[in-house]
């Protein structure tokens, strides 16, 4: 893995994808060897907000040294990021975290499940899974995405990478309800699940996977301070004693954000 660093990233483009959802391309040397599911820390310039904001990598373009972030405006930091124009610079910390274990996909039916602002990292995962060489490739890629309403951002791009099923809370597109409702309605089958989204969704997926004997790899969120494993702010309870912490706690920023659903106590 490349050395982590804090560096300046140049804004290449920024646009609104949906209400309050921004799509930002950054030019940065961090765009090397990114595993889908990894994230970066983005620093607000506002001097009152000193901690980096963890944002997942949505796409990578190694040739152009470019990373894409898709984020929702929720507070001080993201509201500031939304104002950046092409040519301006942002401070970023990365690459952080482990990413999804793509080796589990070889020859198997995989299902990518995303909910809300957990959708973006699965796009790079879908693209990389599709590109894998014969023998490492999944036998089938199903993509199940959950949105609030008809603002199904990134939909077209997912469609390019697999069979896409959509669930919306208001039923305006696809199945009414959550991703698991869409799975049931469409009888989507899988040997391996890769998921990212809100905790209730991840809990439901963990249970679904257990009940159906499917391997599930889920990406977790927690408040972070350092992003590099030093502060122990971002832990998640584990089923077994963690090798690093020697207690039943693991650091999401370094040992995650992606975990085997069986290993974490959520």
């Amino acid at each position: 893995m490349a050395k982590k660093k804090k560096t300046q990233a140049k804004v290449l483009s920024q646009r609104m994808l949906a209400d309050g959802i921004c799509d930002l391309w950054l030019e940065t040397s961090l765009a090397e060897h990114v595993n889908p599911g990894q994230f970066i820390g983005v620093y607000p310039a506002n001097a009152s907000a000193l901690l980096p904001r963890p944002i997942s990598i949505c796409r990578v373009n190694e040739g152009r040294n470019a990373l894409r972030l898709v984020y929702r405006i929720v507070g001080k930091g993201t509201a500031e990021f939304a104002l950046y124009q092409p040519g301006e610079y942002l401070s970023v910390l990365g690459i952080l975290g482990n990413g999804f274990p793509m080796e589990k996909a070889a020859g198997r039916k995989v299902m990518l499940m995303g909910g809300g602002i957990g959708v973006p990292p699965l796009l790079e995962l879908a693209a990389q899974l599709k590109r894998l060489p014969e023998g490492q490739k999944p036998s089938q890629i199903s993509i199940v995405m959950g949105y609030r309403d008809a603002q199904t951002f990134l939909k077209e791009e997912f469609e390019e990478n697999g069979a896409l099923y959509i669930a919306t809370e208001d039923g305006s597109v696809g199945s009414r309800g959550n991703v698991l409702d869409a799975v049931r309605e469409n009888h989507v089958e899988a040997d391996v699940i890769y998921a990212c989204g809100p905790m209730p969704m991840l809990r439901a997926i963990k249970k679904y996977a257990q009940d159906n004997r499917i391997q599930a790899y889920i990406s977790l969120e927690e408040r972070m301070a350092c992003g590099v494993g030093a502060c122990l702010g971002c832990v998640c309870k584990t089923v077994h004693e963690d090798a690093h912490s020697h207690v039943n706690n693991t650091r999401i920023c370094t040992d995650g954000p992606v975990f085997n659903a069986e290993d974490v106590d959520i």
Partner: protein
Amino acid sequence: MNTSVEIAGVSFKNPVMTASGTFGSGMEYAEFADLNRLGAVITKGVANVPWPGNPTPRVVETYGGMLNAIGLQNPGVDVMIERDLPYLQQFDTGVIVNVCGKSVEDYIEVVEKLSDQPVDLLEINVSCPNVKEGAIAFGQKADALYNITEQLKKHAKQPIIMKLSPNVTDIAEMAKAAEAAGADAISLINTITGMKIDIDKRRFALANKTGGLSGPAIKPVAVRMVYQAAQAVKIPIIGMGGIATAEDAIEFILAGATAVAVGMMNFHDPYATMSVIEGIEKYMQMQHVEDIRELIGAVHD
């Protein structure tokens, strides 16, 4: 130009250290900072046995700072001896181990286990605001502080630094109690107890309700306490609380700190310790200061 300082007979190549709990065991920041250039690494607090710490959320940002309620999660002193100390041994840097416990016996067990280890100094955390038992209880009453200091002095092989809590009425009294009981040095400040409420969800932002405030926001309080402690005692002081830049570090040194530690600002700038070291040298050049010891406590009545 001399930047080296001495604490309890141990010499450090420069006065810049890392505040306990903000730099892991050094390993986590080795990708960013050259540990060989640090005066010392002060490790995350370690107890006799592994501690799981508090439930999450454990951290939350505040204006110019953050609150943490990690609750002293740590893998226990045995893991530190097997894994972390050998790691730090590879580097040409001072090693200060921060020690926590729930009872005096816990602390004694840790310092005794560390007695034959490659550790320069022990920093005794009696000021963590985030654990119910022990810890801060020892750090908020002068007689309790005196007692635990005295007992640890009997068992510790390395010199001990008592880490003081800012959550007290009179920091000078606490500093004096530590000195009178035989502490070799003091460090301050630990975090100031604070709270944040999430007004949308109408609940505490931290699972633990309260947490410890750190970062630039608290620096004026820290400088004041270092100054007051320096006026009260003769033992050396390690100053910390909101240090982000060399200018901040120099403020603490002028107020009476022999060494300084960078804490939360490592999270903002993982290279912070390096630029603090460089900036101190630059300041000394500009101000024609030959020996950093001229600066220690140079501002006073």
